[in-house]
Structure formats: C-alpha cells, structure tokens
C-alpha cells in the first residue's frame, strides 16, 4: 500500500503533529503510515482523506495485486 500523505501535507502546509491532532492519532502513527510501516483502518483512511478534502484513492494506492476478473 502506497500513500501520498507526505505530499498532501506539504501541499496543505501541515506538520505530522498538526495532521495527527486533526484526526485524533499520535504523530508516530502518521509517521508509520507515511513510511508504510502501518496500514490504517478504513475509518482512519477516510478521516485522513476528508481532512484533505479528497477521496481515499487520491491518497492511498493498492499496488500489490492487479485487479483481474475471470469471465467464463
């Protein structure tokens, strides 16, 4: 799971501490998400996205498995 939190923070001129306070988590959690050490829950992902007024897909990208559909 990749994310662009750092980019959006820079665009909105927010520190990790500011973002953490805005969504009610610790600064260490924001840092862990940015570094890909921790994958946030859907609830937290929505909170982060709404804080920047964007959709979840704008911030988080799931790149590991390509989406495939089997058609018989």
């Amino acid at each position: 799971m990749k994310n662009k939190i750092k980019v959006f923070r820079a665009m909105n001129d927010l520190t990790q501490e500011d973002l953490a306070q805005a969504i009610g988590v610790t600064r260490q959690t924001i840092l862990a998400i940015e570094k890909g050490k921790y994958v946030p829950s859907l609830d937290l992902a929505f909170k982060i996205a709404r804080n920047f007024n964007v959709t979840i897909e704008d911030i988080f990208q799931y790149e590991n498995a390509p989406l495939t559909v089997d058609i018989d």
Partner: protein
Amino acid sequence: MKKNTFYLVVGCVALALLAIFWYSVEVHSPFIVEAAFIVAIAFIYLIRKKVTDFIEDERTAKISEQAALRTFQVFWVVFCAFSIGAVMQILYVPAFPREKLPVRAPEILGPKMMGYFQLGLLCLMIFLYVGFRIYYARKFGDWETDEE
C-alpha cells in the same frame, strides 16, 4: 489526571502492595495479599481511565492486541503442560492393584517447588509480553524517525 500523577499513584500502590505482602507473610495468610492485589489492580484500571494525556489510537491498540495474543498463544501451552503434570501428580491413583506400583505418587515437583515454578511462569508471561510488545512496536514503526 496527568500521566505523571498516574505513574506516581501506581508507584504508591506498588509500595503498599509490598507492605501488605510482607504483613501477609508475617501472619501466614495468603488471602490478604491476594485480595489486596485484586483491589489494587481494579483501582489502577479505574484511575487509568481518568488520565487525560494518554493518546491511544488504533496503531497503539493493535500493538497491544498483537502482543497480548502472541503472549497468550505461547503461554497457554506452557501453562497447560505444567498444569496437566501437576494435576496428574495430585490425582495419582494406582489403577491396577495387581501390578506392583509405588504407594506414593512419584513426586516431580514438591508443593514448594510448584509455587516457585508458578512464579517463574508469571515472570515468563511478563517477559513474553514485553518482548512481543517491543517486536510489534518496532514492526509498526514506533521508533521510526523522520527529518521533520
């Protein structure tokens, strides 16, 4: 309540428990220290809720959850193995009188040693939890540093 005040209260409770433990040994009554321990833990849980500057989010909750789960997964096996052995020793009954069996149960651990062994198990549980907690805290980026 502030975090430092909470730690101070916990320290005082620990000291009080130590004094009660000493008294309990003096009067040969284990129930005093057992009851005091339960009351002390309940009290600590209660005042823990009143601390205002503890920030617990889903990541810290997940670290605690994973550490507790792994501790349980390891500990119950060790504890069960010990308990089964202890129960077998207590319930030792010669089932086949025709055979020559020893009258007394073979003593693997005496009652005193069992107490020490249980204390060892308790220490093992604490070490396991602390170890797993450090492992998961590291895994979920607790000691990550940033340029910020």
